[in-house]
């Protein structure tokens, strides 16, 4: 009998976890996910979907040790409804604006009937359709807790989930934006030794969600995230992630446009050095008429850092008038860094305009020379050019205040190196 390293790793990881004992809908969703993850197995080095990222650090039973000190939260200055998550302890606030409902996942699971039941594990399972996402399945089965949020009106104040992790964090959030409602969701924090988070987002007709996430600048981050989004007709989903430093980051976004005239934007600005490994994996499915999807991914890599982008736009038969756009760009600041990309289109409808572009190269020597000839020191000139390169992704943030805030945060971190 030949040893199967993938199966061994899966067994070992599953043995290291305990399934939360819950009855009711949450319990059965967990059982379902556990069966799926057992059948699929956790990702291995030879899986095509993990071609450019070695999943070992995310899969192995030992999460590693927690390094790093808690720092000021980048969203501290933003007035928001703050939810603190310290490991598996979720602290809610009483002070909620009208039209907003927030609960712990564990509490929602105790209710016989809860709206989250139709979303928890459901969108994750849909998103595991064409390509299995076993780390998300694992999360659905073993999530220690999470936050369930429901917006029934236009909520002006953002909701801020602030996580402080220490050990091996597995969190699962569920967001429901009802028809015509809108919400801004901020996420930040430190991941601890390792974090696996899943966020499932269901947007009802005419609803809108702005999803803004900052990862970093903690250097010892090992994190994999999944955001599953289902969009009904006339909805808007806008997501932006700022990723600074970290050793292993894999952010997966799985978006399904199920209603006509929906708009979906995903953007990320990432920079790091050395053992920084940053992987953006995006899968957008167009299953309705006249939808727009847009992805803007920018990475700046130095001192042997690795950037990965896997993006796929799937346009199903009948999804006419689709407008799909995708750009992935990397700036390699030295010869040791690398960028690996797989931008894919799979199209079954004829009346569409889909395009993707991908470029990789060094910093523009002419621009650098121009700045230096005007007396700007090389380091500052490089930072300026890096900033302007990443700014194109930051531009995707719709809210002026938040955009400026994130831009300032980015500039500050860049200047610190």
């Amino acid at each position, binding site marked *: 009998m030949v040893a199967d390293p993938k199966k061994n790793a899966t067994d070992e990881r599953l043995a290291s976890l305990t399934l939360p004992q819950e009855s009711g809908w949450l319990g059965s969703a967990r059982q379902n996910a556990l069966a799926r993850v057992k059948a699929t197995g956790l990702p291995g080095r030879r899986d*095509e979907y993990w071609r450019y990222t070695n999943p070992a650090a995310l899969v192995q039973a030992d999460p590693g040790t927690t390094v790093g000190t808690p720092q000021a939260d980048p969203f501290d200055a933003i007035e928001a409804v703050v939810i603190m998550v310290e490991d598996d302890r979720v602290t809610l606030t009483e002070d909620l604006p009208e039209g907003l409902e927030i609960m712990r996942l564990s509490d929602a699971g105790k209710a016989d009937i809860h709206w989250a039941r139709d979303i928890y594990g459901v969108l994750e399972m849909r998103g595991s359709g064409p390509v299995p996402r076993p780390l998300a399945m694992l999360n659905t089965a073993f999530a220690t807790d999470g936050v369930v949020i429901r917006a029934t009106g236009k909520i002006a104040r953002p909701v801020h989930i602030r996580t402080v992790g220490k050990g091996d964090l597995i969190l699962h959030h569920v967001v429901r934006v009802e028809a015509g409602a809108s919400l801004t969701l901020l996420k930040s924090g430190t991941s601890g030794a390792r974090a696996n988070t899943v966020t499932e987002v269901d947007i009802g007709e005419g609803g809108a969600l702005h999803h803004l996430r900052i990862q970093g600048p903690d250097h010892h981050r090992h994190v994999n995230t999944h955001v599953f989004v289902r969009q009904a007709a006339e909805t808007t989903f806008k997501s932006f992630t700022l990723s600074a430093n970290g050793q292993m980051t894999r952010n997966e976004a799985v978006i399904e446009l199920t209603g006509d005239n929906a708009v979906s934007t995903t953007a990320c600005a990432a920079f790091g050095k050395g053992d920084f490994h940053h992987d953006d994996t995006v899968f957008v499915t167009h299953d309705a008429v006249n939808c727009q999807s847009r992805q803007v991914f920018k990475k700046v890599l130095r001192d042997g850092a690795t950037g990965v982008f896997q993006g796929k736009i799937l346009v199903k*038969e*009948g999804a*006419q008038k689709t407008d799909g756009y995708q750009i992935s760009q*990397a700036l*390699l*600041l*030295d*010869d*040791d*860094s*690398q*960028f*690996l*990309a*797989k*931008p*894919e*289109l*799979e*199209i*079954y*409808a*004829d*009346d*569409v*305009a*889909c*395009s*993707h*572009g*991908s*470029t*990789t*190269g*060094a910093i523009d020597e002419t621009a650098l020379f121009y700045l230096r000839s005007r007396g700007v020191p090389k380091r500052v000139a490089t930072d300026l050019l890096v900033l302007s390169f990443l700014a194109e992704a930051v531009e995707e943030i719709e809210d002026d205040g938040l955009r400026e805030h994130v831009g300032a945060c980015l500039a500050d971190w860049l200047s610190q190196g």
Partner: protein
Amino acid sequence: MTALDDVQVKDGVAPDVRVKDGVDAETVEAVKGLSGTYKHGWNTEIEMEYAPKGLSEDIVRLISEKNNEPAWMLEWRLDAYRRWLKLEEPTWAMVDYPKIDFQDQYYYARPASMAVKPKSLDEVDPKLLETYKKLGIPLKEQALLAGVEPAAEDRKVAVDAVFDSVSVGTTFKAELAKAGVIFCSISEAIQDHPDLVKKYLGSVIPASDNYYATLNAAVFSDGSFVYIPKGVRCPMELSTYFRINAENTGQFERTLIIADEGSYVSYLEGCTAPKRDVAQLHAACVELVLLDDAEIKYSTVQNWYPGDENGKGGIYNFVTKRADCRGARSKVMWTQVETGSAVTWKYPSCILRGDDSQGEFYSIAIANNMQQADTGTKMIHLGKNTKSRIVSKGISAGKAQNTYRGLVSMHPKAKNSRNYTQCDSLLIGDKCGAHTVPYIEVKNNSSRVEHEATTSKVDDDQLFYCRSRGMDEEEAVALVVNGFCKEVLQALPMEFAMEAQALVAISLEGSVG
């Protein structure tokens, strides 16, 4: 009857009048000259000799024996065969076809008249000569390919004609020999130039390369061999024409082209097969070796029988093509027009090993009805200052699926290298699919890689413009598509460009309305 004929009768106006300024009269002419959807679907009634059906070590030995091969060649084949038994059929391509029964095929079929190899073209069975004449490739040492008006200068094309499992003849051998060029079938080369074959065969595509290449290494029956000596610019274009005729027979040919230092050759490849209800297998290998300053231009018009509109029959085309730019400043250019085959699985690649070497890939892939094409290229940059360019145009119509799959890899040592990739897909009809699967791997920062891809439908404004000038819809689509493909068509040698342009129109027939 083509739609063009309809127009002629319907309007009662001379077609020349309808062709206005700016409309490519040649395109319309070329389309008009061809009728029926697949014009090479006939077969030649000829007495054939088959090896027993199925695949085994004995069959491998038999093929080797038929070609009178030395022991080392047989060993190479057997080694490949044993490897192949352990391999699994790849499933990653976006193609879907019933499982191939490798035991339900003939691996060797030759016309009975070829049992004794003809010493010259005069001795070749007239039926075979007639076949090639009918295909527009007369096997006489005439100056030109049929259908092309004489050009100002004397253009010659030498042809190696492969019929099922054997090469039936090679033209202009003597004249090429004067320049030092060796152009013959690979089975002859194994006899006459064993040192060259031994040195280069399998050096670009090892016998262990992939499932179909390994199968090919075990059972290849013939193919073409070219050697261009140092500093020689091949005095004429070389070509190979592959014809599958026998039923239930796979064609496995192997082509090896060696361009020594400072040499140049332009090589053309064409292929057709009769219409049959049962799908047939074609698994070829093409190896190109380029030494310092050498240049090879390799052009293919692939027009295997695509199967009928319900997906019955057609050729399963699994081809491994690779060029190794070993020498500095060497340059290779792949140009392909893929219109035929029920299933295409083909990725002509360039290994840019020599410093300053260049690779180019121009492709048009058309899939209509139930055709499936998964094709693209690999550009592997290993040397410094290497350059590559990829222009791929995919057109899907009917219920066809068309995929571009490619790799651009910049190794850490490939400093100052450059790649530009453009993949455009065009969809005609709402039941077909167009897919793009590029892999981009950049491992140094002095190189620049740019990739862009678009997918769209035939532009309504352009169609309307053509229609308002009196063209019918099919004609208008053909014209717009030819415009879409222009960049690639221009990269083809003249004779092929003509044929390709006409083929684009033919392959799309019945795709509108």
